[in-house]
């Protein structure tokens, strides 16, 4: 009986657009849904450093290099903001990492694609960060306070990412014929995976149900995907690139772009670990974590020594 009353009060609070804070009562499923979603989001930021990190040493100019370095550093920061938010729900950082390493937690499938040329650095910033921004702008209004605050911070920083990506791809698209070809090729490879970042169509989405009622999600997968397409097409046109979709067409009536069918079988393959880079990404993360163990040990030993010294003094 008590839980029924609490559940009603909880829902009423959400309906009044008040945020839920860590110490507030919340249904178990709300907590579980948030831990799953926020940790997946955090892991995506962290694993997302890899496809770009590979290009830091191969950046074509010093300017490009410092920018890419700053961007990858931001992704690490974004991962940490999100781990913080997840931890406020009562899960430890160790558990979160363990779930990633044992593949119980997922990360965005987009990072299981390779980045083959410098043009891919453009496409990743422009499309992958662009898609992430559409999702994250919407999540600024999510009902869980710490997640919402993290999103506000991330959105502020993320717009630099998209602009640097668009700058790279536009320079190439407006460059020599070979450069333009590389830019178009990057767009061709990244376009559909970017659209899949928004998740399955609303009708087939297994996790939507309560997420909408509890205002964890503020807009549906299809709404967000449409927003992304509508604004990206104009940007492609400006730099003379075309998205690889013969069915793409402006619809006067809906005032949106219609687009062709998405090949979900590909996404399923990648989610289930059979994408081009799944093994590489996870192994790299495990290795970096294990290689850093001695640093953590040393820091703990030093801290203990300092505490012991204080006790004696």
């Amino acid at each position, binding site marked *: 009986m008590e839980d029924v009353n609490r559940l009603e009060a909880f829902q009423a609070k959400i309906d009044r657009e008040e945020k839920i804070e860590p110490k507030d009562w919340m249904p178990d499923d709300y907590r579980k849904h948030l831990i799953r979603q926020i940790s997946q989001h955090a892991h995506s930021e962290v694993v997302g450093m890899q496809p770009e990190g590979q290009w830091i040493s191969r950046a074509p100019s010093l300017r490009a290099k410092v920018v890419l370095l700053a961007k990858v550093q931001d992704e690490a920061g974004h991962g940490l903001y999100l781990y913080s938010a997840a931890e406020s729900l009562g899960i430890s950082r160790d558990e979160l990492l363990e779930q990633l390493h044992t593949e119980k937690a997922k990360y965005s499938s987009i990072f299981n694609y390779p980045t083959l040329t410098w043009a891919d650095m453009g496409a990743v910033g422009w499309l992958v960060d662009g898609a992430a921004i559409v999702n994250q702008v919407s999540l600024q209004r999510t009902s869980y306070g710490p997640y919402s605050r993290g999103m506000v911070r991330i959105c502020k*920083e993320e717009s630099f990412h998209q602009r640097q990506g668009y700058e790279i791809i536009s320079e190439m698209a407006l460059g020599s014929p070979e450069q333009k070809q590389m830019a178009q090729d990057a767009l061709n490879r990244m376009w559909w995976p970017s659209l899949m970042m928004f998740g399955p169509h609303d009708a087939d989405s297994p996790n939507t149900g309560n997420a909408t009622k509890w205002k964890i999600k503020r807009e549906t997968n299809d709404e967000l995907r449409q927003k992304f397409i509508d604004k990206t097409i104009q940007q492609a046109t400006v730099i003379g690139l075309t998205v690889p979709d013969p069915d793409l067409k402006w619809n006067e009536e809906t005032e949106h772009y219609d687009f062709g069918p998405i090949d979900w079988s590909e996404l399923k393959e990648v989610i289930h670990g059979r994408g081009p880079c799944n093994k590489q990404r996870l192994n790299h993360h495990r290795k970096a974590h294990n290689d850093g163990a001695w640093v953590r040990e040393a820091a703990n030993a030093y801290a203990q020594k300092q505490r012991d010294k204080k006790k004696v003094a």
Partner: protein
Amino acid sequence: MSADNQFPQWEVFIQSKTGLPYKHVGNVHAADGELALQNARDLYTRRQEGTSIWVLPTDQIVASNPDDSDAFFDPAEDKIYRAATYYTMPKGAKHI
């Protein structure tokens, strides 16, 4: 995986400019206070968001309980005479 822990948690407060109050921005993990400060700098002031940082161990914070907040904040509820707008000023009085 071993019990290879990610260090104690510290809450981070930042003063964006001298003269302004410190504001809670989030937390970091670190083995000790000095490293917590450096982590906080790297994580929360990458764009010159601060001129000064405080860190303190999360488990040292004593917080009010949201379940009791009605009763806890009740003493302030009926004292509207603590607000300046409660008082009637004579017509024509200025700068008050």
